[in-house]
Each structure stands twice: as C-alpha cells, then as structure tokens.
C-alpha cells in the first residue's frame, strides 16, 4: 500500500470537511434549537418539545401581552403554499407553451424573441423593484398576493422558457409527425404526444417555480403591506429582526424548520432537478 497518496487524500478530506463544517453546524444548530431548552454552542442543555406546541393553535404569543403581534401560523402557511403553487403552475403552463413554440415553429421574429429571453434570463430582475412597484400600484395590485405572483412569473419565465425549449429540442420531430399524420391537431399533438415526453423538464420547472415562490422574500416585503397576506419569509423575518424578536429562539427555530420542510423534501428526493435548475440554460459553455 502506498502511503503518500493515502496521506494526500486524507489532507484533502480534512480540508473539505473544515470548509464545509460551517454549513453542517448551522443546520444542526437550527434543529437542536427547536428541541432544546437552551443551547451552549452546539451542546443542548435539556431537551423539550414545548416549542412545537405552537402547532396546536398556530398562535404565537409575546409573553406578558395579550395582543396578537403575529398572524396565525396556519394562515401564513396557506398563504405561502397558495403563492408557491400558483407561481409553479403558471410558470409550467406558460413556459411549456412558449418553449414549444420557440423549439418547433419558424416565424418572423423568432430569433429576436429568443435573444430577448436569453438576455432577460441573465438580467437581474431585482433592479426593477421601483418600477414594478409603480406598475403594481397603477394596476391596483399593491398589497395582494396576485401582484407578487405576476411579478415572480414574469421574472422567472425567461429561465423557464429556456429550460423547456431545451427539452423540446431533445424530442425527435418524427414522434410529432406521426401524431399529425394520424390525425392529431397541432395542439393535440403537443398535449398528447410531446408533453408526456418532457416530463423531466416539467418537473424541473415546477420545482423551480415552487421553490422560487415558497422562498420569495424581497417582493413580499415590498409589495405586501398587510399581515393577512404574509408568507413564511416575512414571518421568519419578523421573528428574527422584529420588535419582539427576542421572544424565544426555540419557537423561531420551529417556524423556520416548518418553513424548510418542502425544501428538505426536494433536497433529499429531487436533487437531479435542483441541479438542472441551477445550470439550466447556462450549462452550454
């Protein structure tokens, strides 16, 4: 057995572990915080499930007051879920329609539209916040979840279209052709023959849209004024930095973990899609 390569390898492992350790510790801490009375570094002083009792009513009380400073957890959860689901489905439908057109049709302006979506997909939408605020206000969509949905969909679409176009490009034309010959309409062929073949792409866009909506913070912070429309991101933000942020880190940790559930599920079971999302359209260099 050669010693030198073994030694070299273990040095690599140790350095890798050291630089990765902060991430491991941070997430361990979050979990421990939610089930312990108090934490000393990463060592819990006594375990408890008290923090999880907020699940029973969903109300978080500030000790010593009777006023309800925070909206109900279940209201926040359903707002977040509705927002994420609508965003995800709208993005899947719109981007698969447009992706198909750009992949299969030849028409005047096609290359211009492609260039435009490509440029926009690299473009940071966040810089448009003030103008978006103006537009939403003019349309009467300020302080509504629909406003956030529309803005998110518009800014995410160029990426979604590119993911879907890539998948459509990979489907042989012959499949579609045979459907058309057998008497399908163009729309029918798209729906019955092509769509089932791009399931992976649809999943990627769906997960991307869901996570993008589920995690959204800045647009909710800026475009939502009323607590009735708060999503988890605002809730955690308020628990972290708000007036009563000191109430109980255990409860904050519990809310944060509940917020993380879909993220963890996708992380454990759908990583190939997540990787695809990260590099979609950018993987061609």
């Amino acid at each position, binding site marked *: 057995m050669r010693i030198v390569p073994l030694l070299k390898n273990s040095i690599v492992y140790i350095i890798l572990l050291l630089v990765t350790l902060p991430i491991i510790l941070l997430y361990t801490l979050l979990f421990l915080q939610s089930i312990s009375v108090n934490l000393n570094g990463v060592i819990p002083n006594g375990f408890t499930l008290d923090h999880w009792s907020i699940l029973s009513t969903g109300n978080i009380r500030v000790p010593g007051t009777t006023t309800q400073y925070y909206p109900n957890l279940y209201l926040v959860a359903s707002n977040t879920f509705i927002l994420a689901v609508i965003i995800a489905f709208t993005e899947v439908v719109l981007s698969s329609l447009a992706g198909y057109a750009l992949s299969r049709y030849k028409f005047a302006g096609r290359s211009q539209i492609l260039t435009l979506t490509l440029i*926009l997909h690299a473009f940071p939408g*966040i810089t448009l916040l003030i103008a978006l605020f103006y537009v939403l206000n003019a349309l009467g969509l300020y302080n509504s979840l629909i406003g956030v949905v529309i803005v998110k969909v518009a800014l995410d*679409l160029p990426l979604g279209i590119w993911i879907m176009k890539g998948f459509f490009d990979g489907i042989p034309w012959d499949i579609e052709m045979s459907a058309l010959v057998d008497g399908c309409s163009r729309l029918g062929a798209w729906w019955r023959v092509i769509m089932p073949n791009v399931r992976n792409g649809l999943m990627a866009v769906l997960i991307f849209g869901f996570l993008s909506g589920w995690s959204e*913070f800045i647009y909710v912070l800026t475009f939502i004024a009323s607590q009735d429309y708060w999503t988890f991101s605002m809730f955690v933000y308020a628990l972290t930095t708000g007036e009563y942020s000191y109430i109980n880190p255990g409860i904050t940790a519990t809310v944060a973990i509940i917020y993380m559930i879909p993220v963890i599920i996708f992380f454990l079971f759908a990583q190939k899609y997540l990787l695809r999302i990260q590099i979609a359209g950018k993987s061609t260099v």
Partner: protein
Amino acid sequence: MRFSPKKFFVSNSFTRKLHKGYLYVFLLPSLGFIVVFFLIPVILTFLIGLTKMDYSFRWDWIGLGNYIYILRDKWAYKILGNTLFYVFTTLAFFNVGMALFISIATTHINDKIGSIFRSIWLLPRITPSTVYALLWLWAARGEANSLFNWLTSIFGLHPIDWKLTYPWLLVILVNGFVGTSFGMIIFTAALKSIPEDYIRAAKVDGASTLQIIRYVELPLIKWPLLFVTAYQTLSLLTSYEYILLVTDGGPGLYTTEVWALYSYHLAFAQYGGIVKFGYGAALATILVIIGLIMSVIYWKVFRFRELMVEPKIEV
C-alpha cells in the same frame, strides 16, 4: 439528402395543420407577461430616474438632476467603494475561489463522498433566504453561548458581537456560502466532461496530481471559469437580499451598504418616511445599464447564439 416533409407529404390538409394557427396560443401569454412586467419596468426605471417622484407618484421631470446629484452625494462614493470591495472579495474567495476548490477536490476523491460534499454546499442555495440569514445571525450573536463565541472560546478568546465587530466578515461569509454552489456545479460538470484519455496521458508522462490540475484541468475549464466570473460579478453587483437581512447596511451609517441596497433604501426604507423613488430609480438605472451590457456580452462571448439553431422542420 435532407428530409423535407414538405416534399414528402403533399396532402393539403396536412401542411395546413402544420401552419401557424396555434403559434399565438403558444407564444402570446408568455410574451404578454414579459412585456408588461419585465420590459416595461426596464423602460420605467429609466424614466422614473429622470423625475423626483415620491409616494404621490407624480412625474416631476428634472432631467439628469438625479445623476448630477449622485456626483455630489458624499455617501455615493463610500457606497461605491463598499460595492467594489464586496463584489471582489466575495467573488475571489467564494464564488470562484471556493467553488473551484470544492469542485476540484470533490472530483479527485471517491465519487460518492464527493457528491455528498457538493450536496451539502447546495443546501444554502435552496434554503429560504430569511431562514439562512437567521442561522448566521444566531451563530454570530454576542452572547457567550453563540456558535462563533463558543468556537473561539476553545482558543481562550473572549466573546464578541460579530455583527458589530466584523460586519464585513459576516456579510461576505453569508453571501459566499450561498454563492459558491453556482460555480461549483458548473466547474464540476466541466471537470467531469474532460476525456479520461487526457488525464491518463498526463499520468503516463509522469505528471503528479497537482501538475494534472494545473496543466491539464485548469486550462480546459478556462471558459467556464470566465463565464462564472462574469455571471457572478453581475449577480453580486445587483443582489442585496442577504445584506438587507443580515446587517441592513449597518452597523452605523452605510458601513456595509452596497449600491443596490442604497437604491432600495432610498425608495422603500428611508428613515422618517421620505420616499425617493426618483433618486433610487436613477441609482438602479446604472445597475440596469450594467446588467444589460453584461447580458449582451454573455450572449456574444459565450456563444449563446449556438442555442438558437433553427427548428428541425420548416413550417
């Protein structure tokens, strides 16, 4: 001979079916969204930047007044310096540096263990920003039992409030640990696509692992390196979400404020409720212009045009 369906099928009803009837059904919904909520806002940002609009949404045109004011704004210079420091440091140490290290290291060890490490690095990216920021804020707290202080106490150091003492360190760590994954994924994909023969040939010639990395692998991922650098420069330049969450530009006046956050603060979080949409939009316009120029550069330099091949069939 190229397969040409037009010549192949002469049936009239068939070619009609292929025609553009449904094109607009497919295309218009997306285009509508993009035009109204993406393209028009780009133009509006330019226009609002030429006014002194406030919460009353009145268009009080002042021409280039805001841009002249930027030159006289004493904070603008400090914030510009902050921005350059932040972008350069995060990019060098994490978005490119750490990403390169992780992808090279994890592709040179056992593949399973390597991919576990890469998965862990993906976690910050998909964690909601508010939760992720919360984790760091807790770790950096001033109490003796916070993670950072607990770790440094092992070396006999006194507890400090990390956010107040080293705000930049915190800002760069928070952004860096998120930013690494993008480069990591692209570099790893590029490294894995290097043909095995090249590595084997170098080994036969007696090259050490370090020499293989330096003289075979790095030159072969030159393009991805350049791409990640360019792409992440733009994204760091315009992103402020994590800074907003962690320090909100503080502690004190504009200590960790960056350009994009300054624009946000002017428009949405001014002390005393003075809303400066106009000035904020002018600051944002500069970022929009940089964003547009860089997006066009990617398109030209990184041969995105190759993605635009014509459809396989002529309809």
